[in-house]
Structure formats: structure tokens, C-alpha cells
């Protein structure tokens, strides 16, 4: 039930989250409602099993990676602020933000931050490079048992060949951006709220 939920979130907190993530007041209250409905233990934080209870996420081949993205390095619980910070990457870019000059720090949902989020889902060890192994891992998660090792290996090799420009046999963030420069990231990596 959402009754206790909306009274527990203080106005100051909502303002802080608004500033940090750019979500509107009503979006934040709704997402808080969602957060508490997922929080079966009612302790103000979500663990991995709370996410895995969502059937649509549990059957997503990359579900585990997505869940990991919510948890900071080495931690097992995420609070509402952390939850919102991760979701903020997928907020649509509003028109009035598009041409703002970046004297302030870049908003979480800028094109480059969206791509960084996707890059980090490949680059598990955070060495700012997607190695052949890391690429293979993600590929294997997506195709399951249906493609052989050799086939998958050659797909990975071709992908790296296409993207790699400095010859280090891995994809750096800049190479990643270059390959995807024509993708409509703003449209495709955004969640549109109806209100």
C-alpha cells in the first residue's frame, strides 16, 4: 500500500532528488510508491531478490546485469536515492536541456551519460575498455545455448574489428561512442512517463 510511503518521503528529500535527477515532483512520488511496493522487507532498501521478483525482469536475458547496475561497488542494498540516480539515466532529454551549455555538471541523462551507462554494462571490470572476453560474456547471456563457441567468438572478433581504431583489440569508450554515433540514443534509451 502506498499510504505510509508518501508520508515518509520528506519535501526536502524530494527537492534534493529533483535537483540531482531532474525528475518532476509527481514522478518522484510515484517512483517512491513503486520503490516501496518492491521493498517487501519494508526496510527502506532493495536487495537483488526484490528485483528478481519482477517476472518480466527475471526472464530478461540481461536481467542480472541490469540489476547489478543499481548496486554500487560491492554493496547488496540500494536505497531510494541510489534507485533514482540509476533511473535518472533513462529520463528523456527535454528540449530545454538540449542546448544548455554545460557550465554546470552534466545531467545524468545526457547522451554521453546514457552511452556511458550502456558501456559500463559491457565493461564489468571498469577498466574503461570492453575486452573480447567481456563482449563474449554479454553475447553468451543474450543468445543462451543456441550458438556455438566458435561462432560467437568470430562474431565478437568482427565486432571489435569494426569498432577498434587504435589497434588494442578492445573497445574504448570513445570508440564505442563513435560506432554508435548515428543511433538515436535520446529516443531509444529513454523511458517516457505518461504524467
Amino acid at each position, binding site marked *: *500500500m502506498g499510504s505510509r510511503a508518501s508520508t515518509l518521503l520528506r519535501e526536502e528529500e524530494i527537492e534534493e532528488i529533483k535537483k540531482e535527477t531532474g525528475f518532476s515532483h509527481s514522478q518522484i512520488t*510515484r517512483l517512491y510508491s513503486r520503490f516501496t511496493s518492491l521493498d517487501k522487507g519494508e526496510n527502506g532498501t532493495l536487495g537483488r531478490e526484490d528485483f528478481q521478483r519482477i517476472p518480466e525482469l527475471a*526472464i530478461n*536475458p540481461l*536481467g542480472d546485469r541490469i540489476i547489478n547496475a543499481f548496486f554500487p561497488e560491492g554493496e547488496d542494498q540500494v536505497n531510494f536515492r541510489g534507485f533514482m540516480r540509476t*533511473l535518472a539515466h533513462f529520463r528523456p532529454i527535454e528540449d530545454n536541456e538540449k542546448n544548455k551549455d554545460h557550465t554546470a555538471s552534466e545531467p545524468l541523462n545526457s547522451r554521453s551519460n546514457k552511452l556511458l551507462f550502456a558501456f559500463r554494462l559491457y565493461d564489468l571490470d571498469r577498466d574503461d575498455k570492453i575486452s573480447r572476453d567481456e563482449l563474449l560474456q554479454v553475447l553468451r547471456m543474450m543468445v543462451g545455448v543456441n550458438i556455438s563457441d566458435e561462432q560467437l567468438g568470430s562474431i565478437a572478433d568482427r565486432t571489435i574489428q569494426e569498432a577498434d581504431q587504435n589497434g588494442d583489440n578492445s573497445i574504448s569508450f570513445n570508440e564505442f561512442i563513435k560506432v554508435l554515433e548515428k543511433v538515436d540514443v535520446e529516443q531509444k534509451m529513454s523511458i517516457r512517463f505518461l504524467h
Partner: protein
Amino acid sequence: MTDLCGGGMEGLWSIAVVLLPVWFSVMIGFIMIPAMFGLSLGVTSVYIQILVKILEWATLRIERGHREQPTLSVPAPLPFGLIQREGGSMEQEMGELRRYRTQSISRGEFALSDSFYFYIKGLESIVDDQVTQRFSSEELVSWNLLTRTNHNFHYISLRLTIIWGLGVIIRYCVLFPLRITLAIIGLTWLVIGTTLVGFLSNKRLKNWLSELVHLMCYRICARGLSATIQYHNKENKPQKGGICVANHTSPIDIVILANDGCYAMVGQSHGGLMGVIQRSMVKSCPHVWFERSEMRDRNAVTSRLRAHVAAKTNLPILIFPEGTCINNTSVMMFKKGSFEIGGTIYPVAIKYDPRFGDAFWNSAKYNMVNYLLRMMTSWAIVVNVWYLPPMTRREGEDAAQFANRVKSAIAHQGGLLDMAWDGSLKRAKVKEAFKEQQQKMYSSMVMGKKGRNSQEPHTESTRRQ
């Protein structure tokens, strides 16, 4: 002075002691007798009409309150979900993502942007998914003056609060004792009546009396919940020797359906009070109660039900194929076991009106007693029951497809969402097979239209098939 007061108090008390039982029995008499014969004094419908007027006034008042104080910014529940979701298939969506590439999608292959599809789908489901919301009560568009549904509604006006307070008094002090008494009378009558009927030996008389007893008891129980039931398409009512299937929202479904006809119940035999009721019911006409151990053996269950259905003089059995209570906004997967028995299926759609009381039993949150108490302190139960035309399995249709066909018919009639997800997801994890399905679909996209002839699938020795 004090003597006078003391005397006054005593006088009042003695009057109360005399009047209260009289008033009580009059009320009971006025409710029970007509109930037993299926008549209605029209009191309930007047009550409902008054309630509707009050609730409409309350809704307007709340809306006005919101307009006058926009800083309250209370988010109203969303009927269409929180976010806009892309409806395209996996191929369509990935194709759009891959448009930046020069090769066409029919050549297959992998693109770094493919994973974006899964990320977005995953994040959308974290923000708002279709399944987990079915296992908690439906959020109302406007407050119906019950504390328990007060999610986001703040103090608006004095008048509203007074009405709410009056409502609490009426529901807990007037309606509740009345309803409890009726329920107890109803159940006691069921036990006594069925046991008495069990002593008869004349078949026809026994059946006729048994039906009468059952109907009377369920009607009294329905009054005990202030239930207003509208039956539609009575010509399709389930016949003897058939199977009645309905969507499941709460244990009260049984009372709702049994108000209009006699059914053979199917279920697990319990101990305690339930057990007493179950055993006495069986004395007057055959119901199908299973021991816990029997329920595990699907074949035993099916054959017993089949035997019951085959005897054409037996009452139609009542089954809820979802297997668990859903919150009456959708119909979830029907377990195919009920559809393997054979015989004619009579589908029934049940839809509760959430304004008057939330009928959904959230068995994870509330136990049965708690739930019944909440039911008896709601405004009323208003429910629509549609009898659908009978269905039988077609040639070449297997049990699962038949189950889906019946489910769609019920969902369509009741205005509920037709979902393929399993209701047991309330407690259990989703099957791996669905993830494997998605992986397979994606793999065929990667391999392209030339097919998978030249490679063997990767095998892991520990993989469960």
C-alpha cells in the same frame, strides 16, 4: 443528586437491555426471512443508492479540494500504467536500433546496440510491470471513504471528515454486529440443515431439500456481507454433470455463485470449523473434498472429478482454474488440469465493484479471519456475474489451448485484462523456459535468415533441459 443520576443510569440501562435484543431480532427477522426465500425488501438497493450519492459528492469535493490547493500534489492512480511502452516486437525494435549500420538486418550478425533493447525492456519492467501489481489491491481513482483505501488522500474539508467519521461508526457499530450475527446464523443453519437432510433416504426429497438448505444458507451469508449481486444471462446457468469455471478474487466468490444455484464444491479437506462444515455438507449431497496427500497426485484428482462429472445427476462442480486469488483487474493463466476432465465447461465471469469494498484477498498480507472482518466492515459488496455460453474442447485442441480460449472469453466478458502470466508467480519464481525463449528468438536474429545449419549448439553439462 447522585442518587437521581444513578437511578437514571440504571433506568436507561434496563431499557437498553430490553430493547436491544428486540431490535436485533426484528432486524434479523426482516433480513433473514426474505433471504431464505430469495425475496428482497429493497432495503439494500436503497442503501446502495444513498451510498453512491454520498461517494459521488465526496469525489467532487476531493477534486475541488485538489484544484484549490495544488501544492498538495497528490498523484492519482493511473489506469494505463506509469510509462509509455514501445509495442514493437524484438525484431522491429532491434532493427530500429541497428539502422545506423550499413548492412541490412536480414544478414543477421550482432550490433553493439542490440543490448540496448534488453536494457530498456528491463528498466521499463523495474519502473512498472504488469504482473506484480495484480497481487495487491487495485488503487481507486477516488477515495471511497474507507480508511484502508486512503493511499494518497489528505485532509480536504471538515464535512468530508465528518462523513468519514460517521461512516466508521455506522460500519463498525451498526453494520458489523448485524453481519456477524447473520453469518453465524447462516453457517449454523448450514451445518444443522445438511446434517438433518442427511438422515433422509428418499433420493428426490433429499436432493430437493438439500438444495433448499444450501441456497438458504448462502443467501443469509450474502446478506451478511450486504452483497448485491446482478446475474446476467441466466439461461447459460451451469447444468448438472457440467463443470463451472470462474475467475478467482476471494473466498467469497463461492457465496456469490452459490446464491443462484447449487454447486458441488471442490477443495482440500480442512480441520477445525471448516472441517465440520465440510463434513456436514457432504451428508446431504456429494462434494469433492481431497486430502492433502491426494492433491499432489494429479491423476487421482482428475479421475475423481471425472467420476463425479460422469454421474449426470451430480451437481456441477465449481473450479477456479487460476489456483489463487487475483485482484480482479485481470485474469491470469488457467491451469489446464480442470480442462482435461472432459464434459461441458460453463464459464462464469465475476466482477466486483471496487467502490464499495475491496473484495480481493491478499493472502500474503491478511489471513482468512482478518479478511472476513475487513469484508464485514466495508460498505457493501456489489458484484456482477455473467454466465457465458457453455464450451467444449474442439477437435485438435489440447487442454492448454482450450483453457486459454475459455480464459479469453471470461476476460472479455468481465472487462478484465487477459494475461498469460501464471497466478502462482505470487509465490513462486518464473520459469527459466521463458528466458530461454527470448534467447532463442535473439539467436535466430543473429544467425540471420540463412539458418543454423553449420554449427552445433553450445552445450553445458550442468544445464537443465
